[in-house]
């Protein structure tokens, strides 16, 4: 079993910093989290991601980790909004549509959209 080298670990952890713009945008603009909520989410996601890269004997590729991170951000945003709504519908119809979708699907679309805009 190979432990990731320090260079590998730095590279993997830099994925979080590279994705931070997308994560913030997802939480704030997509899932309508407040600035404070988004900051808390970011802190939790960072702690979780630092452990994600150390799972198993050898970590998956940077691309897979990046997808997992965005997916976790969507899961976080959705869970928090559902909790805040106490089972009620939001007055914001676009948020209702978003909350009815699975976080993994939303994450895939977001990544695709973000990558297209970056090109």
């Amino acid at each position, binding site marked *: 079993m190979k432990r990731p080298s320090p260079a590998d670990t730095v590279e993997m952890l830099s994925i979080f910093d590279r994705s931070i713009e997308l994560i913030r945008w997802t939480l704030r603009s997509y899932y309508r989290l407040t600035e404070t909520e988004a900051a808390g989410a970011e802190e939790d996601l960072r702690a979780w991601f630092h*452990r994600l890269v150390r799972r198993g004997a*050898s970590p998956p590729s940077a691309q897979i980790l990046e997808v*997992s991170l965005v997916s976790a951000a969507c*899961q976080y945003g959705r*869970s928090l*909004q559902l909790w805040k709504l106490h089972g009620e519908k939001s007055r914001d119809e676009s948020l209702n549509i978003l909350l009815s979708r699975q976080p993994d699907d939303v994450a895939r679309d977001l990544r695709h959209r973000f990558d297209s805009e970056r090109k």
Partner: protein
Amino acid sequence: MSGRIIRFPNHNLSLQQAEQAAEHILSLPQDERIRRKRSLHMEDPETLLALCSAIRARLTSYPSSAREEAEFFFRFVDKPRRDIGLFDERSYFLGELALLAGAACRQLSRREEAWIWFDRSEAGFRHTINAAADLSRLAYQRLAERLEERQIDIVLELLPSLIESFRTLGMAEDALKARFLEGSAFLEIDEPGKAAEVFAEIADDPEAEDNPRLRAAAFTNLTQVYGMIGDAEAAIAASARAIPVFRQLNDRIGLAKVQWGLASVLRESGQISPAIEAYRQAQEQFQTIGMRADIAALSLVIADLLLDQGQDAEALHEIASALPVIDALKMAPEGMAALSLLRESALRQQVNRAALRELHGYFPQPDA
């Protein structure tokens, strides 16, 4: 549908502190751990991650201990239900600890237990965010178990898809590990040339450069294959590439397997007494690790050689010691007829040589 966010109870354990905590926890008796679970930070995901890593490191040297510890921490996380970390972390730890317990059971030939642990692992991994990677690692363990149960057709059928999954997921090391199963399957179907090709490719793979254990395992298998095809020089050269690495890593299973390979070289070159001695050394090494299936398989090989030397009584003794283990571990599902013949012949104090050879041909070679 729940929308509740469970905030992460932030203990701020550093990586080093978590490793120290894990080491300390593992040094304590299990009941004391439960009593002191809070002060030991046992529910902290950093600690659990370090514990998984420490248990994984024991797999190749102390599989019995790895099985026991993985089971203990699985039960700890599972019941009473504990909220561990964030998002999918509880599910991940259940999946990972069950996978480690299953892998240890596989090493120890506790087959039925291994399958149950693999099912538990799947139940955990199904709920992780990176499920494809986790389930692929589980699929590897399942195929490795199938190989040991000699379901070679299934292994060769499913292996390409698994290797493809690892490559797609960027898990190059796991893809390479899966190729060991391919080489071992070729050995099982008497294609040593193809097996040697696969193991040589693994040893030469750039991914193996950073992973001495993986490369040493490839050389161990090459030792065995070259021994089987009678190329003693190549076999000894391959073993020399493996032994120092395993010694350095305290990989006791690896060392025992190289020893088995070297014994096979001696047998193939007609040096029967030194071969028996070498097989016995390998057997002793497996004994200290608790790998009963390998001990029993070697007893049959040794019995065969003792018969060559006219030591029938000693051969019967070896067979008598192996038969209960073979029965208990259900080691030879395809060799039941040979097993019955051998058992009957042993009772008559007249070993059925053909049955003996047929039977030890069913047992796994010392693969990775």
